[in-house]
């Protein structure tokens, strides 16, 4: 079988779809161009993250076709297309809505014949898209999705995720935040009322509860809420010591800046479990002293970070956010897996991704687990800077308090945490 696989790779290289593998999903590719689909929120509460992701996807395609960035760094990549094919792409707007995301992805799969599609924020859109991926046997590279369910109860064989999850955020945050603010405190949670917010809420309760804190109350807020003032008043009235704002994107910018404007930070400590740069930029000086986690920082001093961040700045004139890095990295991981497999045949590409270990993505050592398709990797615990200390041109809005490392500080076994609920589906070639 390995011999056949190798032969098929040779035959496939250079285009034409002359393959020993059977047709599956959108394989074989017709012509000499492989099309990727980038399905991101261009409207809705997570549109800023989506816009940054799209920039990074376009940069990734440019590097894959013409060299530059990680295409020059990763030995699997040639910088002259992927496995003999030039890379083209189509884009879609998920509108930060699961149904719209699924429809848009479906168009990419059926009309545009994409061999891989990628994107997501939110987690609801990512989960909807990876269900479609499994059904259509087209690989989906999850981008910004932090819900435990993505690689937990809703995991699929055809979706993989480099992004960490709410469970790991809880693991990383609890020791640092409880050490900073003290023992035995009471906390209150406001959370976005969908899969992501719900799993963050559960994980915060689990890990801060285990650290000796107790929850006073936990209140859902609809995704896309503009005005959090009433919810914030309720939090202050509760008398709790700490407020977790489990909101993201525009919602996160609004809730944290309204909290500070309303004086909530004078009554209680605020924690924003999941941060990113566009959100911090929207909230400005309101994030001063506020703890949170993020996946990556453009100011990290390592070669992959510098290569990507510098290329991004040169191309777009702005510093990339962590969602942008995820988008870029996901595309590169897929392309490298295709090169190693010697084919775009989805089951072979997935097998190359499963268990893959790498240390040249700017975050140290990472492994994409075969059991649940979740990357085990480091997480940054960060703390917001004051408006005066922030430097928007350098994308510097916080200090990195700690790079919580896997496996010492974050991570879990295949039979525990969210992974315990994961049953990956079929490869499609069984």
């Amino acid at each position, binding site marked *: 079988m390995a011999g056949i696989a190798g032969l098929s790779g040779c035959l496939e290289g250079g285009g034409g779809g002359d393959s020993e593998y059977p047709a599956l999903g959108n394989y074989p590719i017709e012509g000499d161009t492989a099309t990727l689909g980038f399905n991101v929120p261009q409207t809705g509460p997570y*549109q800023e993250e989506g816009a940054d992701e799209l920039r990074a996807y376009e940069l990734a395609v440019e590097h894959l076709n013409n060299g530059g960035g990680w295409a020059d760094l990763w030995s699997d990549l040639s910088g002259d297309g992927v496995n003999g094919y030039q890379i083209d792409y189509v884009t879609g707007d998920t509108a930060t809505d699961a149904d719209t995301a699924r429809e848009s992805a479906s168009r990419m799969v059926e009309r545009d014949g994409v061999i891989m599609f990628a994107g997501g924020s939110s987690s609801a859109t990512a989960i909807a898209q990876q269900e479609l991926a499994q059904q259509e046997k087209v690989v989906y590279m999850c981008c910004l999705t932090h819900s435990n369910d993505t690689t937990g109860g809703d995991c699929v064989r055809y979706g993989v995720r480099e992004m960490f999850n709410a469970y790991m955020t809880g693991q990383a945050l609890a020791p640092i935040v409880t050490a900073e603010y003290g023992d035995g405190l009471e906390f209150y949670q406001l959370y976005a009322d969908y899969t992501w917010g719900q799993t963050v809420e559960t994980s915060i309760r689990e890990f801060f509860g285990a650290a000796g804190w107790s929850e006073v109350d936990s209140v859902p807020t*609809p995704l896309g809420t503009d005005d959090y003032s009433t919810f914030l008043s309720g939090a202050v009235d509760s008398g709790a010591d700490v407020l977790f704002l489990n909101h993201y994107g525009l919602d996160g910018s609004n809730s944290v800046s309204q909290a*500070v404007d309303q*004086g909530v930070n004078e009554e209680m400590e605020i924690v924003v479990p999941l941060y990113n740069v566009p959100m911090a*930029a929207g909230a400005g000086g309101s994030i001063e002293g506020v703890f949170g986690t993020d996946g990556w920082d453009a100011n990290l001093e390592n070669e992959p970070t510098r290569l990507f961040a510098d290329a991004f700045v040169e191309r777009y004139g702005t510093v990339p956010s962590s969602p942008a890095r995820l988008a870029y990295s996901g595309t590169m991981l897929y392309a490298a897996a295709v090169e190693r497999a010697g084919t775009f045949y989805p089951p072979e590409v997935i097998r190359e991704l499963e268990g893959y270990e790498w240390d040249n993505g700017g975050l140290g050592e990472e492994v994409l687990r075969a059991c649940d398709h979740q990357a085990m990797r480091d997480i940054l615990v960060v703390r917001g800077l004051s408006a005066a200390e922030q430097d928007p041109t350098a994308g510097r809005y916080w200090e990195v308090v700690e790079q919580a490392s896997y496996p010492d500080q974050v991570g879990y076994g295949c039979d525990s945490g969210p992974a315990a609920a994961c049953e990956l589906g079929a490869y499609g070639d069984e």
Partner: protein
Amino acid sequence: MGVAGVSLLATGIGFLIQTLAVASIYILVAIGLSITLGTLKFVNFAHAAVYLAGIYIGLAVALELPFSGDIGRGIGLGEVGLGLGFLAALAVIPIISFGLGLLMERFIARPFYDRPDTDQILVTFGVLLIVQEVIRGLVGGRSMTFTRPEWAQGAIGLGPLGTFARWRLAIIAITAVLVVVVYLYIEYTDVGLAVRAGTEDAEMVNLLGVRVTRPFLLIFGVGSGLAGAAGVVSGPVFSVVPEVGIGVLVPAFLVVVVGGVGSLVGSVVGGLLIGAVEVGLQMGAPTWASVGIYALAAVVIMLRPAGLFGVVEVDE
């Protein structure tokens, strides 16, 4: 009054302030919508475009606005703005929006006065989308916020009533002043008289030899000025992105439906009711908060098709 009574009273007043804070923006936007619908029988969804333009022009007056959208970068606009600060924007934008309203009446509304509601909705919603996308192309989708003067930042404690953002209280005061001024204008000036008469029966007013075109034009501009003002005062509270126009349109339109077309008092009462339902549900049943305002509008339409203070039914 016992301790429990004081506490209940404090909760009630706190709820009222919260409701006023939420309702203020809706009311400011709804007044223009309601007046245009009442006087000119014109369904003007592009009203939200004035709100949107008010915010972004206000940002350009107040700050150096980065033109980082695809079009903005393409033509190399860089950062453009007067940098005059927030108060300058607050003073200038209602006047600019008044002018935008006059232009909109002349070039968008007037050609469609005699067309069916559906045509009016399509064209005005289209204008809103065009304005939104042009702004996105020029400035980009990244959220922005107004920097306020120090006195307008932070919170103020009102004892047992709770702690409120200073600027939210300022919005309530600004809204109250603007509503009173417009109310006096409509009730006690010749223009207002013509508008009120024209709202009741435009044909009869014309037959009596009063030209209602000019008063209607003025009142269109006044409504637009309020929408622009709403844009600037809400800018520091909510992150500014190109979709905020569409975001405010739906609740403002529901305020008109509940309060009744063509009635300023109706817009105020409708806004307060919508605000109260939203705040009440956020306190008691948060998952229903976004649905509750639609339920309120549905109930009001069933019981009073013209709205609570409506002069005419929308499709009359």
